[in-house]
């Protein structure tokens, strides 16, 4: 059991870590909604959002380098955003000898700012909440039980399946396989087929093993996850302030 989601979580004993997971889930999603609903012309509002996230990261003792490393996931969209002013329509300006579209620049800024804030918020959520707790929180938020269970099993076996795939890759490459173009795709596809059979058969074994231990289709909950009013109050700070900023941004001319 190595790699995978265990690196996403940073154990800690801070206020942010101790908050019940359902409060954190609601807080992050509402924060993202507030960010997306903000008009893009209000630069200061996005600064406020970044400061809010910075405060959360400081309270949770998540180092900036950790967040920065995980922001790599955003790179494809940064590239896309850079392309928008070049191919966008509308009024154009010259900058450094390149003709750029003004609405395109606005759109690029809009996507970059909002996507970056959203990604940073998700990273902070994953860094301060154990995956298992996050799922329990989702269950308390009335996400369908079946969906939560599927996600639980997926998280539990993701590393197992991933390791199986890695072993198959090592086996392929130690026999001299290099994927150069689409002609090599059938080899990869046969690996995928073998991986599916192994996953499915493992699923059947897991199911039988659980049945023999008294599984009735529902997982017993052994931890009480009730959130006090104070917990909700603390969690509401982030989206609350964000919504205030968004409202001010809208009401300004």
């Amino acid at each position, binding site marked *: 059991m190595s790699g995978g989601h265990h690196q996403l979580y940073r154990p800690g004993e801070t206020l942010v870590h101790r908050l019940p997971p359902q409060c954190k889930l609601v807080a992050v999603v509402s924060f993202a909604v507030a960010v997306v609903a903000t008009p893009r012309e209000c630069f200061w509002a996005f600064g406020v959002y970044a400061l809010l996230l910075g405060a959360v990261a400081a309270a949770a003792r998540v180092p900036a380098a950790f967040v920065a490393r995980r922001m790599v996931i955003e790179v494809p969209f940064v590239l896309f955003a850079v392309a*928008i002013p070049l191919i966008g329509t509308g009024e154009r300006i010259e900058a450094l000898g390149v003709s750029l579209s003004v609405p395109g620049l606005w759109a690029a800024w809009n996507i970059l700012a909002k996507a970056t804030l959203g990604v940073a918020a998700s990273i902070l959520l994953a860094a301060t909440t154990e995956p298992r707790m996050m799922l329990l929180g989702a269950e308390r938020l009335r996400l369908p039980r079946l969906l939560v269970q*599927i996600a639980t*099993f997926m998280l539990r076996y993701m590393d197992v399946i991933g390791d199986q795939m890695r072993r198959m890759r090592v086996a392929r490459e130690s026999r001299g396989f290099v994927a150069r173009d689409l002609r090599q795709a059938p080899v990869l596809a046969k690996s995928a087929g073998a991986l599916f059979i192994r996953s499915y058969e493992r699923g059947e074994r897991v199911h039988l093993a659980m049945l023999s231990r008294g599984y009735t289709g529902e997982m017993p909950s052994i931890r009480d996850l009730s959130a006090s009013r104070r917990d909700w109050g603390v969690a509401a700070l982030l989206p609350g302030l964000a919504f205030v900023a968004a409202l001010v941004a809208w009401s300004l001319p």
Partner: protein
Amino acid sequence: MHVPDGFFDVPVSVGAGVFAAAGVAVCLRGARRELDDRTAPMAGLVAAFIFAVQMLNFPVAAGTSGHLLGGALAAILVGPYTAVLCVAVVLLVQGFFFADGGLTALGVNISLMAIVTTVVGWAVFRTVTRAAPGSRRAVVAGSFVAALVSVPAAALVFTALFWLGGTAPIEVSSVAVAMGGVHLLIGLGEGLITAVTVSSVLAVRPDLVYGARGLARRLVLRTADGEVEVGEQEPAPVRAGLRPVLVGGALVAVLLAGFVSFYASSAPDGLEKVAADKGLSANAGPHHLEDAPLAGYGVKGVDDQRLSNGLAGVAGVGLTVVAGGAVFYAVRRRRRHQDRAIA
């Protein structure tokens, strides 16, 4: 193809979220029929498989590589309902744990990558396999075509959403061409890998392939008294009736077109804006359809701008459905004629 936050405006994100939630709710009920009480462990393991397979990069051309979306593959291997659930869970986990894909764009992502790819892939697969029932080759060919079609279909729906509420000022036609072209290429790779994967699973455990359930032959015991067939025929795949899909699809389309265009911004689209900026509009003669009842996406004689846009959207969907239905009907009649001629 994971859409980030801020790419679509709020009405489209909310609309897609409602659509995704409804689709997942339908599939939660359907998946129980496909897997009974095994649903959670099996779907969880299949979701882990899809997650792993999405990391399997395949080279498309020199320098670029694509990765599997897996919607069509999952539908053929484990059935359409379970497939939607699995891919949706993969997307949820990617959004919340890996920050891949925006949280406000989850509805869009689930609609595109879980629902559209799976439903389109499964529909195409059923059409192809129904043409040649009971043939292993048809299953493999069907897998190829299904995966090939499912990826550009998702790209087209993405373009439609972009037209409704994209935030970038790029002409919709160029988005359609770029997205369609790139995803046709990716679809080729997806089709190839899906077909070979399905055929390799068929070779080892044909009983695991949901789409090939009718293929298994019954066990025949040869006794002194003659031949006896034992065991029940594997049930043919649950036929998800076409009617609920059609009715549901039409409802969603009308809702989206009506409500979303009700709230969508009334800013002119890119092309109209260019025309206005460059002063083309002044010189341009009146369009010969300008007096048509739907000109400029508004209904004449209805004064409220938003209401008028909404009505135009609904009417547009209706027209599209009628046109599409007419084509479908014509094709089907022709096929029936041909069948009769062959008979």
